[in-house]
């Protein structure tokens, strides 16, 4: 599960978002939508821990996969300086990805910020006739990968917080309008916690199943250290589940948002 992936291509998508295309047969051959990799951003002690980044897209013919990330701190900043030909120490694919039910005819993916990236491979893999993508960004400057998402969805709606591009408002507002027009079979969420919390509540109102992809600071990334937990329902009680191993994708109804 640990391998050294060669960087085939790097692409800067906007001021702080980068795409890396990595070659690794091990990972590309079995990665599923919604899974992630845990990678070293540099040798040595700076950015000591690995950083979890979702698998954005898989190219099984070329044995490559893409990751897309925003520069947040030390690790992602070092990662943004990596060049084609460099090698990255990667563990993956990790975690439980999205559940694809190919009997579904209409699915919606709803993503916000860095949450949109794992939804891409899901759109590529799903066979539903209708695939709606609702992507939320802070403002126009943050909109990325619009064409790519358009290509793999039947409908693409973009929302920005300030209305500087697409629809003004939240992803969940847009989602509710979609539902009111036509109830989808399934919704997939990935984004800020508040978006997913509102989203799950919304879907429960309409009785639509959904999955959410969660994030948490990680240690091992493989389920051994128990640092990356989220609250999940368990019988009449609750428990902490490991986002890295039991998730990152969970059924919406299983998560207890605080």
């Amino acid at each position, binding site marked *: 599960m640990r391998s050294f992936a060669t960087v085939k291509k790097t692409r800067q998508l906007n001021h702080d978002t980068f795409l890396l295309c990595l070659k690794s047969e091990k990972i590309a051959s079995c990665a599923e939508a919604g899974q992630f990799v845990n990678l070293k951003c540099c040798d040595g002690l700076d950015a000591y821990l690995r950083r979890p980044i979702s698998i954005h897209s898989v190219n099984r013919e070329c044995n490559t996969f893409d990751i897309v990330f925003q520069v947040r701190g030390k690790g992602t900043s070092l990662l943004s300086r990596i060049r084609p030909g460099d090698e990255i120490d990667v563990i993956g694919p990790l975690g439980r990805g999205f559940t694809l039910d190919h009997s579904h005819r209409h699915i919606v993916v709803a993503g916000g910020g860095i949450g949109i990236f794992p939804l891409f491979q899901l759109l590529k893999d799903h066979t539903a006739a209708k695939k709606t993508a609702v992507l939320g960004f802070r403002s126009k400057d943050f909109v990325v990968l619009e064409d790519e998402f358009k290509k793999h969805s039947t409908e693409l709606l973009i929302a920005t917080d300030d209305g500087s591009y697409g629809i003004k408002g939240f992803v969940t507002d847009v989602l509710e309008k979609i539902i009111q027009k036509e109830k989808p079979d399934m919704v997939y969420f990935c984004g800020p916690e508040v978006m997913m919390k509102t989203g799950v509540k919304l879907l429960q109102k309409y009785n639509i199943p959904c999955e959410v992809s969660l994030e948490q600071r990680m240690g091992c990334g*493989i389920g051994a250290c128990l640092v990356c937990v989220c609250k999940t329902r368990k019988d009449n009680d609750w428990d902490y589940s490991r986002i890295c191993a039991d998730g990152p994708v969970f059924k919406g109804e299983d998560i207890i948002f605080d």
Partner: protein
Amino acid sequence: MKKNINLEVNIAGLSLKNPVIAASGTFGFGREYSKFFDLNLLGGISVKGLTLKPRKGNPPPRIAETPGGILNSVGLQNPGVHAFIENEIPFLRQYNTAIIANASGNTVEEYVEMTEILSDADIDAIELNLSCPNVKEGCMTFGSSSRGVLEVVNKVKKVARKPLIVKLTPNVTDIVEIAKAAEDAGADAVSLINTLLGMAIDVKTRRPILANITGGLSGPCVKPIALRMVYQVSQSVKIPVIGMGGISNGIDAVEFFLAGASAVMVGTAGFVNPMAWVETVEGIKEYMTENGIEDVKELTGGLIAD
């Protein structure tokens, strides 16, 4: 020309095929890392810290990166000692590696009860955790005074029918005094160090990064402190010392042997390099080969300090 290298060590009745043990709390119950390497390669596994009843642990975030290390505030999330015996021992027993049950209690009675239960279980040793900085009750309270250590270890020793390792906290003025108390109370070995109490702050949110505010520091950054404590303790007690704190490779491990450790545990380094445990075994072998040392026991306490 190649000499035979003997990595076997025997620690207070616990015999290990090599002196590298996975540190408690960093290796779960072995299942996850068994996908990365053959657990048979390890001297032993100290399992995730157990309590009498299942424990949920602390709220997330539970980890923060710090310069050269990490803080964690897991707070002993575990399924309880009974679930461990039922669900985890059978898995671990498939492998030829020592099983060390790391046990924490809220009260002396709980420590005693757990020791009784674990003495009947199919494990190889008990590691009494008197040093978890992430739970409010018990544990650290007992571990930070020689009186507390004496009391718990004395009572536990009466019922223990497995080699008893006492794990010490570094958050004390005089670790030697604490180690001596453990020895006097009948500990078969001591292991050190557990994590150092620390804290990280996010200036953007002005909040602590850990939901629990404080957490335990581990990783390379603590190695100098751990080495010093292992050196001091091993000069002062007769029972074997198991050293840990920031070990990432064979050279680090050799430093601990020279300082006086009979075996080592590796934890945090495995998060970064999942092969750290086996590479530590390999690295020790390499050092021994290069330096013409046939038995790893020769390294223990081999520091030249004059």
